[in-house]
């Protein structure tokens, strides 16, 4: 089948894959919210506009924190940073993972051992050990910094996964043939191996995207997150610090967690949809 046709077919299946549509719709919705939400926020971010905690009302769409900050403002800005983290963090992690995974898996031997060693080191050093030192030195930390940090520390997962996958491909015939035909390493990797695990790479990226978001949430929650702006993890952090549960300020800690779950969940569902689109075999299941 020619390239042109392939494209159409993918598009065709993309359009009639409900998983993909639902997932994408949810994510898209939140993206819109993140982009346009701030302009609807009545109050500036993190400013102490109200006397104290207020339940949601026409005045404060999503209520206010115990300190009288507008939750809506925090929420929409938080959404924004969530996507930044996912995109930047997940992106960097996936790229590094591909690089390491492909070469390790394909080359094998000492290259593999070396890359493996590097992976292991990153893997075994609890990532927030590095973060701690960073935190200690940087009095001001932004979302972008956090994203980059996550990207630089969370790639081993992808690397290992891709490496394993590459392994199984390397022992397949077409790779042998390619080798016999004297193709160069890069060529084989990107012409033979990569295309054969496109959907897998996609899956990896989206998992990383979601993973980065969850990672950030955890870091923020233990108080190692950004010191400026807003993030959903920070909201939860402050909510627990402010005993929001016991005082029943549900509007403070429910939305951020829900949003994260919804976004990441939607991403995963979307991802499986894509998987089916890319992989005809799955369609027939």
């Amino acid at each position: 089948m020619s390239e042109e046709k392939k494209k159409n077919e993918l598009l065709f299946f993309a359009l009639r894959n409900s998983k993909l549509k639902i997932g994408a719709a949810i994510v898209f919705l939140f993206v819109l919210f993140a982009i346009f939400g701030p302009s609807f926020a009545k109050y500036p971010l993190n400013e102490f506009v109200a006397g104290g905690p207020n339940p949601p009302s026409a005045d404060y769409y999503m209520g206010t924190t115990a300190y009288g900050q507008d939750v809506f403002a925090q929420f929409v800005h938080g959404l924004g940073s969530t996507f930044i983290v996912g995109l930047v963090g997940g992106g960097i992690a996936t790229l590094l993972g591909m690089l390491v995974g492909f070469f390790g898996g394909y080359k094998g031997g000492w290259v593999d051992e070396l890359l493996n060693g590097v992976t292991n080191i990153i893997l075994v050093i609890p990532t927030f050990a590095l973060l701690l030192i960073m935190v200690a030195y940087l009095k001001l930390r932004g979302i972008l910094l956090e994203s980059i940090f996550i990207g630089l520390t969370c790639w081993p997962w992808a690397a290992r996964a891709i490496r394993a996958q590459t392994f199984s491909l390397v022992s397949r015939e077409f790779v042998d043939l390619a080798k016999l035909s004297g193709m160069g390493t890069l060529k084989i990797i990107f012409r033979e191996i990569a295309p054969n695990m496109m959907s897998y790479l996609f899956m990896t990226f989206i998992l990383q995207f979601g993973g980065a978001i969850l990672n950030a949430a955890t870091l923020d929650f233990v108080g190692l997150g950004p010191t400026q702006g807003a993030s959903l993890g920070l909201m939860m952090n402050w909510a627990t610090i402010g005993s929001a549960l016991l005082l029943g300020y549900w509007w403070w800690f429910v939305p951020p967690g829900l949003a994260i779950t919804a976004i990441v969940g939607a991403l995963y569902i979307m991802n499986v949809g894509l998987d089916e689109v890319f992989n005809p075999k799955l369609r027939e299941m």
Partner: protein
Amino acid sequence: MKRYFLRKLLIYLLTFFIAVTIDWMIPRFMPGDPVLNMLAKAGSVHAEAQEVMYGYLTTAFGLDLPIWQQYLNFWNALFHGDLGVSVLQFPRPVVDVIKSAIPFDLLLLIPAIVLSWIAGNKFGAFAARSKRMDNTLLPVGYILTATPYMWLGILLGWVFAIILKIIPISGAFSYALKPALTWTFVLSVLEHWILPFASLFIVMFGGWAIGMRNMIIYELEADYAHYLEALGAPKRLIRRYAYNNALLPQLSGLALKLGVIVAGAMATEIVFSYPGIGYLILMAIQNSDYFLLQGCFLFIIIGVLLANFIIDIVFILIDPRTRLGMQGGAS
């Protein structure tokens, strides 16, 4: 094979060496002076005494030595199981502090990880059986794995501890008890254990289920599966093969997740004030007890490395492809 193992071992030792070196840097890289922090915490009224104390403790922590010597001493002490003294829990040795936290982690993490892995794989394989189940059951998996550990923890605690008041929200066992091997105590331990365990288990379960589901679908489309079908082999057999083969990537996933899980466990332990390593780390961070921090990280490093090594070996034992592929690489 032997040669291969030796090489692997070497790699791991190297990794260990580097990781530990980085770990060693933590307290020394931190701005400020651990001893000063400690004195600041001591909050003694009289500065004069503090200055004496300062000199005294600096020697006690061996921070007055040249850096290279400190490094050598660190390794030396390491092999004698001495990780220095905790600042937060002065004068308690870091090793003691960690020792008393480890059981709670084993209690929490091992069952959570292993059970969720097994259950998740089964569920994923089950979900992959038919389109209908796939579409109905799996979204559950996605939602679960997409839930932030601590948020689930908060909600669980909220529902069971605060609204229903049927499970204690914090600690590892009732404050009215002394640790002793009695039923009362064991029950109390279980009752405090269940919520943190649940929030870890549930989230991980979703992850494994999805992983397995994706893997098994690939396997079911593999050539050997088609061949068996052509020879009229029953679905049962084919599924079994697919499942077993799909377990391999899942297994390597297990090794990889450990790092992440530690973080997740940390968040969970914080929510429930469960006195494991994660909680200890938070304590150490908040009180800038970098010696304790160092110890905790060392523990994690060793744990993760060990797990990786074991899983590597298991892999070699059960996956001929890897084994032979690697031998090829080795020779």
